[in-house]
């Protein structure tokens, strides 16, 4: 087998594995009557399927991309709902895998590494399943409380947003690169030929993400906005007209987010009007600091350390590369915004659902992407064994996160070893 064919085979095998595990997780979760999958498959989907209850279903789940695809499988191909839900999860699993593959492939290409490396499918697969580091004695989670993780495998609609999150991250980074310098050649896209099509692409990706679950853009758009406003203030202080020029750029970028923002507002209205999530007189409330988070863990600090150990270690060994890069700064800002939402917001009638933890989880996913960027794009000035050892340690920690993901899936699927 030629080298090219072998690499291609590895990419396909890991893709199929991701799809298969995504499917099996639905099967396993549906046997649990209080799981998110059960709610979506046995409550929301039947509501959406009947004319007389359609609006009620829309109110309960105004983010319906996952449901729409499942219904399409059910209506068009006659696949029973449970199985159609499994295939939809599979589809989104493989979509995430492909986008992360594209992300890592582009970084490898940019850094001049071997793009046929087996590491690319391995990292991509790992990103789809990795979990916080955990051990029986270091049980960071309250019994039966869902962990705060970049990959909450128990929630179908969150999983559906991951692929769009990767694409939005790539698009924003390349758009910013081109906005900052006309000579910039994109890492992920050919932005040197103009940005118009990428603004449109970003707008579409954000919109689809909102239709999958609004939580990613609830964090991402404010974070991008904060960074751009900060840059505008910095440009404005130069007093050479660059502030005015940058304002135009800011406005253009903001316009790409408008459709997504409008849909988010419409979804919130639907919640109120059709009596979805807030039907029992509930609403979004500001909670005491970390009140909701503490329902999930006794030790918030430790839960962050365990969820982001790879990111934190990479930040320490690639400090400048991470902090001075747009990827690192954007991911950190996203984490800041997500942290504030998780720390102060909740839904009054169901605080225990932790519905404002989702944006934080998306931010954690982006932090992993930023750490990968810093690790892969960083070039040492000279060969030093100590630096190599640190890089090796970082990859080992990444592998540990993936291993914990494998263990969780084994537990989830009740596989006896």
């Amino acid at each position: 087998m030629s080298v090219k064919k072998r690499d291609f085979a590895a990419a396909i095998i890991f893709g199929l594995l991701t799809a298969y595990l995504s499917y099996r997780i639905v099967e396993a979760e549906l046997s649990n009557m209080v799981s998110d999958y059960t709610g979506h498959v046995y409550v929301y989907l039947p509501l959406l399927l009947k004319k007389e209850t359609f609006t009620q279903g829309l109110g309960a789940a105004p983010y319906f991309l996952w449901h729409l695809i499942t219904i399409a499988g059910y209506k068009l191909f006659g696949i029973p709902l449970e199985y159609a839900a499994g295939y939809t999860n599979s589809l989104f699993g493989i979509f995430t895998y492909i986008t992360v593959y594209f992300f890592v492939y582009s970084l490898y290409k940019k850094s001049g590494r071997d793009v046929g490396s087996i590491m690319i499918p391995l990292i991509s697969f790992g990103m789809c399943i990795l979990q916080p580091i955990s051990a029986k004695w270091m049980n960071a989670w309250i019994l039966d409380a869902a962990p705060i993780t970049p990959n909450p495998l128990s929630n179908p609609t969150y999983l559906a947003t991951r692929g769009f999150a990767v694409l939005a991250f790539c698009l924003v980074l390349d758009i910013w690169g081109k906005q900052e310098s006309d000579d910039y050649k994109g890492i992920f896209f050919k932005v040197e030929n103009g940005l118009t099509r990428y603004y449109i692409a970003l707008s579409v990706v954000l919109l689809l993400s909102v239709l999958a679950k609004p939580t990613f853009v609830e964090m991402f758009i404010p974070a991008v906005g904060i960074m751009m406003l900060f840059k505008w203030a910095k440009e404005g202080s130069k007093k050479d007209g660059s502030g005015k020029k940058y304002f135009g750029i800011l406005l253009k970028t903001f316009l790409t987010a408008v459709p997504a923002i409008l849909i988010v507002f419409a979804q919130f209205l639907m919640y109120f009007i059709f009596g979805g999530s807030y039907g029992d007189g509930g609403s979004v409330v500001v909670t005491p600091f970390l009140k909701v988070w503490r329902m999930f863990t006794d030790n918030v600090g430790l839960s962050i350390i365990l969820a982001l150990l790879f990111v934190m270690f990479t930040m320490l060994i690639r400090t400048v590369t991470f902090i001075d890069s747009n990827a690192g700064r954007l991911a950190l800002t996203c984490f800041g915004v997500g942290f504030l939402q998780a720390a102060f917001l909740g839904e009054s009638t169901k605080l225990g659902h932790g519905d404002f933890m989702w944006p934080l989880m998306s931010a954690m996913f982006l932090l992993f992407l930023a750490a990968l960027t810093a690790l892969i794009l960083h070039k040492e000035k000279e060969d030093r064994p100590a630096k190599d050892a640190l890089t090796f340690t970082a990859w080992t920690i990444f592998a540990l996160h993936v291993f914990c993901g494998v263990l969780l899936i084994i537990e989830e699927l009740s596989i006896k070893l």
Partner: protein
Amino acid sequence: MNKKKILYAVIAIFLIAFCVIPFHSSNCIVRLHYSDIDEADSFYLLYATKEEAEFGGDKLIEGVVNPDRHVIEFIIPSELSGDITALRLDFPVADQAVSLDSVFVLAGSIVRKSYGANVFFSPKYYSGTNGIDAIQTPQTEIETYILTSGTDPYIVLSDEAVKVINRSFSSFFVTKLLISLFIGGCIFLYHKEKRS
């Protein structure tokens, strides 16, 4: 001293203060793992404090039973940290054999102590009983059978057990230290790398 050094000093003071100043301590969780219980409702952990030395009143914590995981969990609130003088484990009023596997004491998401039930329900860790017919551990087994009868079956935990639980409340010092070291490390390494 230049501005940068002053900034470093301020950050260092802030991080040290973050580590040293106690915000609040964690709850302490006592987790009993059981293998068989007929009547799993109404397990209680009663406590006495320095101010109120007697058991009774509202000084009790109800056990949360998780039948799927075979766990009974008592969450002792952080306000009681260091204040508990005595503990009493009350069993459901029923004639039954409660079969326990292990006992875990957790705080701040870390298992502080773990015991086989045969160890935790040995005379070292309890000082008295009522309505308990027998505490039996078959030889070569960890599992312990507690035979209850009467109207008020309970086991009074010993001073040793109380000491273990009182010491287990976490002030999150290690977590705060790790976060401070990370933030301090990032700032230090960033400027060091920038200079070189």
